[in-house]
């Protein structure tokens, strides 16, 4: 279990507790956070759970794999730290993680 801060496009911060092993798309859905859709349920098939990892955390969340990179290529306004939140799994190392949400998922 660790805390993750979701920052909406408007700057509103929501801090949620995320169990280790859960992905950050699911955690957003579980906590009713708007701005993350997750239409495909975490299958890396829809890219509607796009988030931007805070610069300070980019190294710790790891690199997207090839499929995720390809999906990210098509999201609205991709950034260097863009990730699909369904592909980030909570762990002790990510305690305190901050992620930013885009203006739109499509």
């Amino acid at each position, binding site marked *: 279990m660790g805390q993750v801060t979701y920052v909406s496009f408007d700057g509103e911060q929501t801090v949620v507790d995320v169990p280790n092993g859960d992905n950050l798309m*699911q955690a957003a*859905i*579980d*906590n*009713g956070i*708007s701005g993350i*859709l997750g*239409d*495909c*349920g975490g*299958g*890396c*098939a*829809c*890219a509607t759970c796009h988030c931007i990892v805070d610069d300070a955390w980019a190294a710790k969340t790891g690199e997207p794999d090839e*499929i995720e990179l*390809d*999906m990210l*290529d*098509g*999201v609205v306004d991709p950034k260097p730290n863009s990730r699909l939140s369904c592909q980030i799994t909570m762990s002790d190392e990510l305690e305190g993680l901050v992620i930013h949400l885009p203006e739109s998922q*499509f």
Partner: protein
Amino acid sequence: MSETVVIIGAGQAGCDMTAALRQQGFDGRIVMIGEEPVLPYRRPPLSKAYLSDEMTEEQLYIKPASTYEKQNVEVITGVRVERIDRAAKNVTLANGEVIDYTKLAFCTGGHARRLPLPGAEKPNVHYVRTIADIEKLKAQFLPGKRLLIIGGGYIGLEAAAVGIKKELRVTLVEAMPRLLARVTGPELSEYYYCVHSAKGVDIKLGAGVDALEGGELVERVVLADGTRLEADVIIVGIGLIPNTELAEAAALEVDNGILVDQQCRSSDPDIFAAGDCANHDHGFLLRRMRLESVPNASEGARVIAATICGKEAVHNGAPWFWSDQYDLKLQMVGINQGYEEVVIRGSMEENSFSAFYLCGGVIISADTVNRPKDFMVAKKLVAGRVKADAATLSDESVELKSLIA
């Protein structure tokens, strides 16, 4: 009077609507009623990761009970809605409870089309729609068993892929002359035929089923040409019937789904429908369509929530779909009905290609296999009704992205 939204059906659309209503600022009462005994869950993994034991029942749940509590959403499971009184604006549940509504939403989904043959009720004949279906199937889904799948659509093919993975002996029969006949072009049908055949699925096309033979269990399936196929386990995947009985009983307009407009509103302005049960006037396809997909259910749910909250929203996204079989990631966008030309980009031999369907030079649909990048661009090309010619689309030295207007 305070507002109450009653949602009939606790699947993807119903669940997404509860969240969307709160996110849009709805502060009235929300009651969601489902007839299955469990919380709303994701159905796509039923024929994939859940059948192959790579996912638990809890992991199927879209969200835990605590989330509904936090959002002040009342979830009633394991209870059917018996009737709707549109004049009094209430619903009566099977347990006798009566709930008043100010707005009502049908998210009733559908049920698997039954095989209309004697013997189809026997315990080794299975369908793939609910957790209960899969629990019953899993007990018989064992290595070495002879699995016979009736129907070469997505459900049948995904089940075949899991059957091979779990070392069953898999035969698949399809009444049409090709696989996926209803949803894709002959090129993709042929490709998936080759893939499944190479993996060991014995596929029989143009093979209608005439009879089921056996004792306590079905032991043989008799095809129209008289061929008898021995089987231990049978899966029937021959389509979905929308659940519209309640809507019909309430005298709403129904024609292959509950008829709704671009705001997902039925012939009664206080009653909406979304997901598999709705036949909507589609804002992008510009015709009536009943779609069966999670993205369609989610979009419809969001449109209803926005409409109830007095915001402008129309159901007009380009529909998209996905299917996972073996290590193939198939992603599709648009509806290819009426296409005049198909263009292949990439290599079927290398299992990395996209098929673009053109009508009047406009890209109306695309099927991509292991090409998520193409898929993401194709969504924009289809949504933008972009024109392209075959030579450009098939030329890999031309970036697809460059076609986006």
